[in-house]
């Protein structure tokens, strides 16, 4: 082996620099940044038209609709997670220099969630209002979205990494990633339904937090592997 002279990996610096960079890039195209949120709200509106204006009917499906739309909005935004960097050549630079790569990937996921998932969780009460969700369940909804959307981002990142170079990758991404989202949906929507039924949702929330911890630990590594495959 030729001797190498690698710099001391400065993990924290890499993490913060990457997050800062991605947030700056996102802020500079605010229109694009808002897209998933707008999709979410439009979706909620469409459901009102589709289901009919009766509050009881809407309230009955509100939990499911709000959660599934959050899923789909995240999916919509996920395609851009790596693709934009792939298109201008910065993704391969990340793959070549970031040491370890999964830290760089994690940084991108965090920045992505801050711009996509967090606004969804914050604005969900608006959707809940439109669908006549019982006010008592709204804090639970927000909490589960706060815990669940990062899981969606991080699991979705694996799919986004694998499909990064493919031309029509967006639909394939949905196909690959949606089955993996089932547990998050079950736990998140289940917690809200429990609250609506007067049952304590703590078990679901705890499990959701556990899922978050688990996927945050493993998925960035899988996504980094997927990225190396996608860049070939």
């Amino acid at each position, binding site marked *: 082996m030729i001797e190498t002279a690698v710099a001391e990996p400065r993990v924290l610096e890499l993490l913060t620099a990457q997050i800062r960079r991605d947030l700056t890039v996102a802020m500079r195209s605010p229109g694009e940044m808002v897209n998933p949120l707008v999709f979410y709200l439009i979706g909620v509106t469409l459901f009102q038209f589709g289901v009919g204006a009766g509050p009881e009917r809407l309230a009955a499906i509100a939990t499911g609709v709000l959660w599934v739309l959050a899923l789909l909005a995240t999916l919509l935004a996920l395609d851009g997670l790596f693709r934009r960097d792939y298109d201008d050549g910065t993704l391969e630079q990340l793959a070549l220099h970031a040491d370890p790569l999964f830290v760089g990937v994690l940084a991108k996921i965090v920045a992505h969630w801050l711009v996509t998932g967090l606004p969804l969780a914050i604005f969900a009460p608006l959707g809940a209002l439109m669908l006549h969700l019982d006010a008592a369940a709204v804090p639970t909804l927000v909490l589960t979205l706060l815990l669940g959307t990062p899981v969606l981002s991080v699991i979705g990142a694996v799919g986004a990494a*694998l499909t990064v170079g493919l031309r029509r990758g967006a639909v394939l991404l949905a196909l*690959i990633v*949606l*089955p993996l989202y089932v547990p998050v949906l*079950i736990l998140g929507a289940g917690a809200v339904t429990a609250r609506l039924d007067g049952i304590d949702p703590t078990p679901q929330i705890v499990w959701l937090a556990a899922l978050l911890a688990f996927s945050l630990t*493993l998925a960035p590594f899988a996504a980094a*592997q997927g990225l190396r495959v996608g860049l070939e």
Partner: protein
Amino acid sequence: MTIGERIKAWWHRLGSPRWFYRVCRAWSPWLTAVGLVAIAVAFGWGLAFAPPDYQQGNSFRIMYLHVPTAILSESCYVLMGVAGLVLLVWRMKIADMVIAAAAPFGLAITGLALATGMFWGRPTWGTWWESDARTISVLVQFFLYFGVIALREAIPRAETAGRACAVLAVVGTVNVPIIKYSVDWWLTLHQPSTFTLTKAPAMPPSMYLPLIVSILGFYAFFAGNLLARVANVILARERGTQWVQSLVAGPPGGVMSCDGGREERA
């Protein structure tokens, strides 16, 4: 040779397509035959000789087809996950071929499990589809298979596609227990199943013995079919190598139906 050396030698041989091809060709017909016989026995036994269930009458008999296919659909995915891990860590080409061969089989068998589940559900629950733990898990499994197959087709380069599918298979396999657990748990919140399939001991032996035979038969058939498919994939992928060329050309008047052989025969 010590045990360790034997294992190493076997592992090394496992990675050789040529050796694996010979193993496939040798074992596949036997496994398939044993499997088919077992399945036939199980069906005959289960359909004709097992007593009718006190709750479901005769419609429960579809369990002899449904349960093995459902179990197999999961096992096949786990196999793909393990093969994926082998491919990523040890870079064995064979693992990629196993994934490529197993995925369509898994998809088909999962589809069969879903269909038989629906046919079972109709007389039992009164509807074609009931969201119960098993049906949802199998449905999600179906989509997972679809994802692997679609990913392979979408990536133009074979080796890259293989590695991508390996990553997806590993990630999917890790998720399978999580999905199962959450679906199971989700169901308990809604309605209790009228019939849970795990209660095998609650069935008299005359009912669950043919089931076991059926399951084993399906596994054997799966193994035989998988090995045959892997053999084909090996031939296709290794078509440039010398041993495949000479195999295909065959002795004069050869067995393989390729143009060279036919001309030689004339």
